[in-house]
């Protein structure tokens, strides 16, 4: 049992990583991956929504009529997104401004609805909690990885909450901060992960 719950938690991080293996939830993913701060903010918000909507949905899963389950899921998710968004507006206005419309857009993030439909509506609360948490962590880690690359190459330095971590004295490649950089880094990372995956199988 112990082993099993551990698996539920870690599968979201590696084996079924929502971004690199399932390729879900790309819109907020690429748009906010310009700096580590944004990545942490978006990752935390998405994990919060994912975790709590998984808990609520798994708690009431037997009471939800099958035919209208999707609208119910969406309403539950939208409520948690509203909470996250209001919280950010009140306490983290700078982050809220940087993330812009991508905070409310967590509602249509396919990962969250996908987990609700595929996992939380069929499994008990403990498992769904772990699943939601694992997927959220997987999402956040992937976001950190891509923002790390983009911020480092695009600005030549890394900053975390206003503190400069590293800076290199070379001309930064602006393009990595702009839109094409996100798509390029994503394409290269996907190819790399697939290459590693196929090596492992063989």
């Amino acid at each position, binding site marked *: 049992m112990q082993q099993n719950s551990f698996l539920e938690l870690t599968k979201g991080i590696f084996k079924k990583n929502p971004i690199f293996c399932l390729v879900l939830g790309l819109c907020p993913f690429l748009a906010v991956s310009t700096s580590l701060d944004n990545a942490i903010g978006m990752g935390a918000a998405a994990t919060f929504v994912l975790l709590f909507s998984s808990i609520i949905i798994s708690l009431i899963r037997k009471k939800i009529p099958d035919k209208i389950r999707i609208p119910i899921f969406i309403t539950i998710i939208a409520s948690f997104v509203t909470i996250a968004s209001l919280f950010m507006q009140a306490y983290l206005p700078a982050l809220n401004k940087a993330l812009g419309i991508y905070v409310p*857009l967590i509602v249509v993030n396919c990962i969250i609805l996908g987990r609700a439909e595929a996992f939380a509506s069929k499994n008990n609360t403990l498992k769904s909690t772990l699943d939601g948490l694992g997927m959220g962590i997987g999402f956040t880690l992937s976001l950190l990885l891509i923002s790390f690359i983009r911020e480092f190459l695009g600005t030549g330095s890394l900053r975390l909450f206003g503190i400069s971590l590293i800076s290199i004295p070379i001309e930064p490649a602006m393009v990595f901060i702009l839109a094409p950089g996100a798509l390029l880094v994503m394409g290269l990372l996907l190819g790399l992960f697939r290459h590693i995956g196929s090596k492992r199988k063989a």
Partner: protein
Amino acid sequence: MENLLAIIIGAIFVNNFILTRFLGLCPFFGVSRRTKPALGMGLAVIFVMTLSSIITWIVYNLILVPLNIQYLQIIVFILVIATLVQFVELFLKKANPVLHKALGIYLPLITTNCAVLGVAFLNVQENYSFIAALVFGISAGVGFLLALLLMSGIRERMELSKVPKAFEGLPVAFIVAALMSMAFLAFSGMIR
């Protein structure tokens, strides 16, 4: 009038929904393998986006603002859009079966298309008037169609070329999108 022109050019080229705002990426990669379904999807998006832009504008400005409950906008917008898509589907089925057959399978996908919801939020954020919201909805849809069509054309050609094994399918599609996005950066000086 000049303002509207700026909105049109802005939404189609400068801030293209897919290539610079990353809205609607899932259908962008999902249905861009062939030109014909890409066209169908693009037209369906223009249709729904225009309608939802108008309707969410009306709901926001005539219901949410007077009642002072703007904080409910996320829940209200997503439910309005989901209902709207259902209505459009039912209506098309009765009124125009040919069009329904052409667009039908794409309609349910549009509900979870972030681009449609994105238009609604951007309307609120930019404080657009009714006419501006209408124009913005249409041009955002046209920009979506444009990017989707270009992408599907490239991907059709790409099937004939040799791609390294690990990059087949999605990874190379991302890289193509990156190059397209880079080309669209050239428009960025057009409006401030």
